[in-house]
């Protein structure tokens, strides 16, 4: 499905260059390596839990790649590690949330242009609309990019967000990663009608339903959507069809609700392998490049792991100090009491 008319504004760039394609490949490999390592970290007791994005690298890296962090703003769920990495977020600070250091992560969202990690399904979709409307009010040209899943599409807030965005012509790109599953519930028992993209038409919002495992298609679609929204034409919805290859999280057991055969069929060809074949076919990269990229990814993972392992707990005073901009006497009293009783021990 493609109901987004070609953008006259010329905002969307031309085809991806060889450099860009190689960069996308490097990003996907870095993300894949960190992602699979994080599962291992959890098994090794380095972190208590993790929600892998295995198989969604093209969707995440490709969409994140279209963002201009000098003016846009991104609203993730709990599964957008690949987006964070693509935006250049400090990955120790990002991964710290999975170490149970701080809900939302330790990175600075204002500087990173990535809102705090969001655990409420569909929780931040409306925030993107509000931020985007703020651009309109300020006469700026930033675009909000908000992520949500097939499961999240069932939440009332997604409907309210799409309606608000369309009524206000807010510059938002709704990026749905339809990975086939919401924990144990498959898309066909979640998304009536079968497609989140199909919903957009009802709001007069153009939509693109794309192969989310084709990183080039993802970059292209996201760039087109950004150009459309940036030019004052209002929101766009992208539904990137992909597959959650791993468990929902490290505490999930997919064997209870899908077979290995179903997994293999649903997953199709690995998005990284697809890009690799393409790079080879177009002679954009060779084995030496791939080896180099893998080595870099490994080095990067090691660095992040070291950072995570070295990360101490946040001081308990932050519990109190970060509640408000202007604290209250009652809270100060509780903090004092807490300090006294924990030192006393």
């Amino acid at each position, binding site marked *: 499905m493609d109901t987004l008319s070609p953008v006259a504004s010329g905002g969307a760039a031309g085809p991806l260059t060889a450099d860009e394609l190689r960069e996308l490949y490097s990003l996907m490999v870095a993300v894949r390596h960190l992602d699979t390592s994080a599962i291992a970290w959890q098994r090794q007791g380095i972190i208590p839990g993790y929600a892998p994005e295995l198989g969604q690298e093209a969707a995440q890296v490709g969409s994140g790649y279209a963002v201009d962090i000098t003016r846009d703003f991104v609203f993730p769920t709990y599964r957008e590690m690949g987006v964070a990495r693509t935006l250049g977020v400090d990955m120790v600070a990002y991964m710290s949330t999975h170490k149970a250091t701080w809900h939302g992560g330790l990175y600075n969202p204002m500087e990173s242009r990535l809102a705090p990690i969001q655990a409420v399904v569909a929780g931040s979709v409306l925030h993107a609309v509000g931020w985007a409307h703020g651009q309109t009010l300020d006469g700026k040209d930033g675009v909000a990019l908000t992520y949500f899943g097939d499961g999240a599409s069932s939440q009332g807030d997604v409907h309210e967000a799409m309606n608000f965005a369309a009524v206000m012509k807010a510059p938002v790109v709704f990026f749905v990663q339809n990975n086939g599953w919401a924990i144990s519930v498959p898309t066909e028992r979640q998304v009536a009608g079968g497609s989140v993209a199909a919903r957009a038409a009802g709001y007069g919002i153009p939509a693109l339903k794309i192969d989310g495992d084709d990183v080039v298609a993802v970059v292209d679609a996201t760039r087109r959507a950004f150009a459309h929204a940036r030019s004052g034409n209002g929101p766009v919805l992208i539904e990137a069809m992909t597959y959650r290859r791993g468990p929902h999280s490290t505490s999930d057991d997919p064997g209870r609700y899908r077979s290995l055969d179903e997994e293999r069929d649903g997953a199709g060809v690995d998005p990284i392998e697809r890009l690799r074949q393409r790079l080879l076919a177009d002679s954009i990269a060779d084995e030496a490049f791939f080896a180099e990229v893998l080595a870099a990814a490994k080095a990067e993972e090691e660095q992040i792991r070291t950072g995570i392992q070295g990360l101490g707990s946040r001081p308990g005073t932050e519990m109190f100090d*970060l509640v408000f901009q202007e604290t209250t006497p009652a809270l100060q009293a509780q903090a004092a009491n807490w300090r006294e009783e924990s030192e006393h021990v």
Partner: protein
Amino acid sequence: MSNSILESGTTNEPASTTVMSMQQALNRALDEVLAENRKAVVFGEDCGRLGGVFRITDGLQAKHGAQRVFDTPLAESGILGLSVGLAMAGFHPIPEVQFDGFAYPAINQIVCQIARMNYRSRGTMPMPITLRVPSFGGIRAPEHHGESLEALFAHVPGLKVVSPSNPHEAYHLLKYAATRPDPVIFMEPKSRYWQKAEVDIARHEADGGAPTGAKIMREGRHLTLVAWGAMVSRCLQVAELAAEDGIDVEVLDLRWLKPIDAAALAASVRKTRRAVVVHEAPLTSGLGAEVAQLITQHCFDTLKAPVERVTGFDVPYPSGDLEDEYIPNIDRILFGIQRVLEYKRG
């Protein structure tokens, strides 16, 4: 604003005052906030062209433009979620939820997002959101138009909650709340919108300070009545009646329902040694329990009787015909006072 305070704050004579209704006072406060802070935006259902079903935003769209004062679609979660994003973009949203009972669809955004974003973002994404909620009962309205949500809001970490009891308080508390960097739930006692009273525009408090704590509305020696919102004026009436029987009642307008001014409660009850707390919300797990417990904690030795609560019952807010049976009326408050005064250690 601060100029006026400086000008009048040094003298002790009352500054020039104006008589207006709470509706007018709130409207004026919003008008000034919009004028003083170009990042302030006012919105909600019917807030623009109509000026709100209670006319609190009357004329603001015409004056400040449809970009800064606007109607939203009919979806409270949407309105509050929008506010979060606007706050992230540097705005000071002043949304309205049309009636108390329609805050429920927005609770998820209020509790999980607005109240926590400053914390979650480690102070980098403050939420200067002033949520106006026409609140409480007493106007013979349809279902869900007479609710008291203060206990819910006060329990939520990250929120501040305030309720004005008269036009003067309304003007100053709203101006104060709407210039704070933290989220404030502003509960307007809708049954008091149209009563007129004097507003001293020039200054908040007799001492020139910010309206941050509770306020003694009437001094007394025998018993402290604690109330907020529409119940304050009722308690003042009760105090007059009690005075005829020689009972000298102090009336404390709690004003801030979170944080609660425990020091003011303690100071008053240490003097009077007896207290009754009055609210419209149901009894169980109402804010009266918190107030009573704070008083007991601070004044255990001086209290002559357990703190009494005169409140709504643990029943859904009833239809107009039974409203007066539900909301604490003068008689029930007097009975409560009597129970406390007649209390004898067994």
